[in-house]
């Protein structure tokens, strides 16, 4: 006879007391419990280039890192500010072309070019997106998707900035280790920087804009300013990623405005877990290598992509990190009812 009812009980672990941001550390063990995941992540990313079998795969890691920066910027805008942006390609293209022009016509070295392109590109993208900031949800998404499509065609039609040939002869990084560790350092910098940002007072205001913009207005703050600030941070990150790509491929062309840069970060965020910032990074490190492995199947890899994405949306819509964090921070046990 097994008719007794059971249900699953979830308990927070002891050290997650009172608030999400407040921890009571009582021992080395608890300290390790908190720092271990962070340590594994940092160490994992840092040793990854050494574990790769060939230069080809090291390049894949670099590309994954670039997508990771882009995906984090998407996650910041979508899950912390409430702006769903499909403008990844817009940011990449703007940053890429700025870096390429600075490098080829002014001879500025790559490691100086990249930060300049990030800031200048961030300013340009923010100014261009300024009229769309009052839009929300799918409307903002549509407008941000129009920009890369339009800019690519403008370059093609007016035959400026190298036209369809693109800008050739962009200087590469000094060597492949600099390239590799520069992008890795950027991923870690932005990952921990953004995690910090969303928990300080300024970040709380950004999250408040997502939750309830009317109440932010009633608190005497201009939501347009905070949205513009968030867009500046996100587009600056995207432009930095674009500048890195240009220096890695030593070429800048219209394909920088390709929709891959808008779509893949979203797929990575869905798989990795939105709103965690680390989730999108993880998602990129899963999706980009898979995409490389499937390269020999040609366009069929898009099918594989779609299947993975659909499976996640249907069966684990919260994403890997949200699921993992819950399992890590909570006990589960069966109790009799």
């Amino acid at each position, binding site marked *: 006879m097994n008719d007794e009812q059971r249900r699953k009980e979830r308990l927070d672990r002891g050290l997650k007391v*009172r*608030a*999400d941001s*407040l921890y009571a550390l009582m021992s080395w063990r608890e300290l390790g419990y908190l720092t271990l995941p962070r340590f594994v992540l940092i160490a994992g990313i840092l040793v990854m280039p050494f574990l790769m079998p060939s230069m080809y795969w090291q390049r894949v890691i670099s590309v994954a890192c670039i997508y990771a920066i882009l995906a984090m910027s998407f996650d910041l805008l979508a899950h912390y500010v409430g702006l769903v942006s499909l403008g990844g390609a817009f940011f990449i293209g703007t940053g890429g072309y700025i870096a390429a022009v600075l490098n080829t016509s002014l001879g500025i070295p790559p490691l100086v070019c990249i930060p300049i392109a990030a800031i200048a590109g961030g300013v340009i993208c923010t100014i261009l997106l300024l009229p769309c900031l009052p839009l929300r949800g799918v409307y903002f998404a549509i407008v941000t998707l129009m920009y890369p499509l339009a800019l690519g065609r403008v370059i093609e039609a007016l035959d400026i900035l190298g036209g369809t040939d693109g800008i050739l002869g962009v200087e590469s990084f000094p060597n492949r280790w600099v390239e590799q560790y520069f992008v890795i350092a950027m991923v870690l910098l932005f990952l921990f920087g953004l995690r910090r940002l969303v928990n300080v*007072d*300024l970040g*709380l*205001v950004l*999250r*408040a804009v*997502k*939750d*309830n913009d*009317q*109440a*932010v*207005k*009633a*608190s*005497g*703050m*201009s*939501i347009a300013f905070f949205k513009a600030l968030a867009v500046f941070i996100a587009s600056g990150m995207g432009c930095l990623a674009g500048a890195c790509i240009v220096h890695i491929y030593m070429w800048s062309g219209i394909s920088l405005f390709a929709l891959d840069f808008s779509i893949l970060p979203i797929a990575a965020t869905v798989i990795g877990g939105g709103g965690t910032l680390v989730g999108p990074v993880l998602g990129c490190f899963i999706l980009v290598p898979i995409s490389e492995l499937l390269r020999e199947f040609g366009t069929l890899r898009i099918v594989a992509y779609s299947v993975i994405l659909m499976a996640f949306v249907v069966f684990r819509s919260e994403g890997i990190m949200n699921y993992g964090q819950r399992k890590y921070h909570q006990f589960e046990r069966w109790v009799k009812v």
Partner: protein
Amino acid sequence: MSRETILRVEDVSKTFGGILALNRLSFDVGRGEVLGIIGPNGSGKTTVVNCITGFVKMSSGKVFFKGKDISGKPPHKIADMGVTRTFQVMRPYYSLPAYKNLVIPLFSPRARRTGGWRGGGKLGDRNTVGIDILEEIGFERDSFVPYKMASTLPTGYLKRLELARCLALQPEVILCDEVFSGLSMSEIASMVPLIERIQMDGITVVMIEHRLRELFRVANRIVVLNFGEKLMEGVPEEVMSDERVREAYFGSEEVEEVMTYA
């Protein structure tokens, strides 16, 4: 009426399409008083608050705050000057704990300039000040309620949180849009002293209410609206005994109850 006028509403009209929501409405609010605005459903009470605080652009007319024309300014500028509001449908930041909800107003330019609630923002970190405000407004500190996610709080606490958000700015005028609605009798009973304490702090309160009995206890003066026009204004006793007000509210049990009770 010897009070200095802090807020003056002058000939304000508002049309939504062809509907006249407010028709040349004028009234004054004296510094430090509690003004009640009452009226049947659809009489334009919330529209008045929206027009004063800039959330809705008025069709014509002017609003003066301390003699300065604030009509047509964006809501955040008006809030920055010290005219804040609560929302009838509560608008907390659901994904944040209650005390973090108050970090946002404490971070605003006004709060950083003036120090926010009782100047506390200049002393310590905003989290502590947020918890202090919540304690003052009836969140029991020891019960961990201030640390709970806003999405898990019941209506009574959310209404208080709305008020707390206004108080955090150290405003000069608070416009309360139905803070009593949806609360139980005992919850309202504990809110009334809160309003009185806010008034004692020197803050002017404009209250839109349907709960007339409780409103008449705290309000110094009442403005009655009907179909977007001012029906009458006066002290609660005058309003209660006025024939036109009875007529406007005809059929409303609440008023019948209050009127007979009075």
